[in-house]
């Protein structure tokens, strides 16, 4: 009885009612969250398209499907999959053997399945095409030199090789290939994939690596050189997924098995690159696939304006959060560093070293850390670290620049050390501190594009996807808002200068 009365009273109390509603909402959200399936993809067209197709299949199967596009290279995706940040992503059998399991020669799907099992990862059957690496040249140049197969290159050591940085470094990449075929080109460069085609067309390079399903092959009149020594392993496309993924989601992914051959994949890739729209290419899969289920919901297309707006919002959030934390941490550190000594050297030195780490290297260091991974947290942490040095250094310098006579005066008139800091030193250093924060903010707006590399969104997303497509308008969708944002941030801080820096410090030099 008492319990009943209590609960009656509870429902009459509006606060309790709100709280219980919230509790129910939370439970509901939790249930929904379980139904979310996140698909990742690598930073190239084919992977994007496969990711979009998977997203669509999962949506149709009733899941809340997310697609984290262009998350970078194999290792980043693999780490994300293992740690559960994504549930599935498209991968190739050759890559699984060589790069992930580090067992060259392991190329049979059954063997791969056995090797993946203890890791909690499973794989679908083959999707139907073999996207192997290949070397290609322009038809014209190949004919001139009479080259049809890779062995023919032996007598052409003067040719310029421009391969993707990944191919340059891979265990099954350029170096072992060159040694197997006895090639001794001296001019071998790392060139980003999409840019490499441009370089090939303009004759800056003679040979580049390609994927056998690459849309650019036909478009640019390129020939694939015959792999006459059978160097390249098989790269048959599959989807890797977590064992914990719901069975219905696995079934959805498996609908792709055997539905895409090389020709079809090349066509889908070409469609994606021509339309600059991955989801449109993905919908072509459904339109042309006889086996595919009828499309129930159209794949949503974001308008350019709303995607710019969305990316800018995410970008600002990344910059804002990281800058806020940097200010909270760097000003106290700057105060400590203003007192010259070993501690000061240590703080400034460490912040300086952080600043010199290239953003890709920093991401590579942060992504494997538990709790960070492929997420906005990693991007914010990286930006936070990059923001520290300008703020620490300017705080320390600003405080050191307070004239000796005024330091003495502050002590002599009877201010406590704490009051000297807050009433005299910090206000007098405010101009310098604010300049440090401004520098950090402007640098951050530019650097935040790195978030696009790890699927954390922002204006880096169109820049990276545009680079991948070799499509200037897409790049500009990210680059122009980023530049405008940098100018706005500059303007905002110029206004803040007038609000925060005490008026007495903004006067001209004191009259004699």
């Amino acid at each position, binding site marked *: 009885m008492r319990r009943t009365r209590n609960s009656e009273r509870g429902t009459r109390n509006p606060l309790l009612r709100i709280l219980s509603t919230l509790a129910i909402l939370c439970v509901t959200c939790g249930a929904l969250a379980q139904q979310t399936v996140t698909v990742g993809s690598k930073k190239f067209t084919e992977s994007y398209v496969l990711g979009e197709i998977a997203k669509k299949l999962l949506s149709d199967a009733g899941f809340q499907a997310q697609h984290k596009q262009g998350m970078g290279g194999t290792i980043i995706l693999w780490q994300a999959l293992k740690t559960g940040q994504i549930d599935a992503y498209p991968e190739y059998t050759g890559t699984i053997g060589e790069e992930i399991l580090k067992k060259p020669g392991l190329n049979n799907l059954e063997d791969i399945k056995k090797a993946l099992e203890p890791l909690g990862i499973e794989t679908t059957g083959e999707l139907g095409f073999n996207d192997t690496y290949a070397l290609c040249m322009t038809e014209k140049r190949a004919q001139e030199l009479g080259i049809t197969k890779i062995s023919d290159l032996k007598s052409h050591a003067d040719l310029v090789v421009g391969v993707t940085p990944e191919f340059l470094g891979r265990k099954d990449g350029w170096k072992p290939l060159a040694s197997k075929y006895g090639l001794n080109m001296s001019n071998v460069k790392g060139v980003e994939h999409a840019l490499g085609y441009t370089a090939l067309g303009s004759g800056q390079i003679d040979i580049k690596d390609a994927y056998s399903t690459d849309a650019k092959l036909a478009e640019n009149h390129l020939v694939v050189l015959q792999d006459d020594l059978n160097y390249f392993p098989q790269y048959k496309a599959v989807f890797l997924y977590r064992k914990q993924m719901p069975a219905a989601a696995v079934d959805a992914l498996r609908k792709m098995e055997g539905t895409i051959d090389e020709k079809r994949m090349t066509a889908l890739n070409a469609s994606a690159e021509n339309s600059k729209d991955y989801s449109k290419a993905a919908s072509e899969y459904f339109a042309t696939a006889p086996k595919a289920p009828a499309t129930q919901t159209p794949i949503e297309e974001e308008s350019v304006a709303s995607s710019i707006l969305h990316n800018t919002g995410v970008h600002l959030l990344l910059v804002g959060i990281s800058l806020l934390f940097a200010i909270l941490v760097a000003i106290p550190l700057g105060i400590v560093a203003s007192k010259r000594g070993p501690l000061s050297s240590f703080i400034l030195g460490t912040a300086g070293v952080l600043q010199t780490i290239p953003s890709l290297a920093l991401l590579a260091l942060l992504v494997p850390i538990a709790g960070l991974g492929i997420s906005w947290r990693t991007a914010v942490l990286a930006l936070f670290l990059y923001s520290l040095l300008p703020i620490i250094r300017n705080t320390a310098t600003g405080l050191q620049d307070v004239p000796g*006579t*005024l330091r*003495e*005066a*502050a*002590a*002599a*008139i*009877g*201010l*406590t050390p704490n*009051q000297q800091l807050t*009433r*005299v030193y910090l*206000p*007098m250093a*405010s101009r310098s501190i604010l300049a440090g924060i401004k520098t950090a903010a402007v640098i951050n707006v530019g650097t935040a594009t790195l978030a696009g590399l790890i699927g954390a969104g922002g204006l880096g997303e169109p820049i990276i996807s545009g680079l991948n497509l070799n499509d200037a308008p897409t790049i500009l969708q990210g680059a122009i808002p980023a530049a405008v944002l940098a100018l706005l941030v500059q303007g905002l801080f110029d206004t803040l200068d007038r609000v925060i820096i*005490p*008026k*007495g*410090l903004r*006067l*001209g*030099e*004191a*009259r*004699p």
Partner: protein
Amino acid sequence: MGTTERGPPWTMQNAQMVELRGASKSYGSTVALHPTDLSFAIGQTTALIGPSGCGKSTLLRLIIGLIQPTSGQVVFDGKPVGEDNLLEIRRSTGYVIQDGGLFPHLTAEENVSLVARMMEMDSGKIQTRIDELSALVRIPRDLLSRYPGELSGGQRQRISLMRALMLSPKVLLLDEPLAALDPMVRAALQTDLKRIFEELGTTVILVTHDMGEAAYLGQTIVLLREGKIVQIGKLEDFQKAPKEPFVTEFLNAQRSLVAL
């Protein structure tokens, strides 16, 4: 006053406000002040004078605890100056330096009331005190809303004096307060300073390099050279009975005292 004016300070009958007992200051092998005994009597104005580097500013810094003596001690109002009573001593001391030492980010009034506000003094009392002081140092009330950068050198020194006097200090320390001012402004301020010292009856220690100023404002003059006291007395003592040839040399170098 009659008895005190006759003898040198160390025999003065008055209670002592500040005493140096064998206090010295060295920086490595450089001696800024040799071990020195010196007393400052309550209500007296003492002028410390000497060429640059003679130790007069070092002496002032020792009194207010900006630097610690290498040997000996400083006694302030009967208590040795130490870490524990530093804040108390500084708050019962007024301090004025050459270019005023006003904080550029605060208005004149904020400069004057800063420490009082930190001590959470009643704002009505602060206003009353500022009114009194602006009348005393003859600074128009409306100038107080200006920033130091908007004031003339003379005005800045008057404001700095207001700040020093805000908490009714027992001792006023002035480190070459008028050195950077032009002669007209300096003369006007000297007149006002003399009047203010007499009106308040505070113990004043004034560092200057101008013998005319020392003689005009100080009841006792202490001449220092290379970290040592050379002579203590009045201008006439220096002129009639110089203890060392340096005393006469120093006086001769002060052109304003010599009939041109």
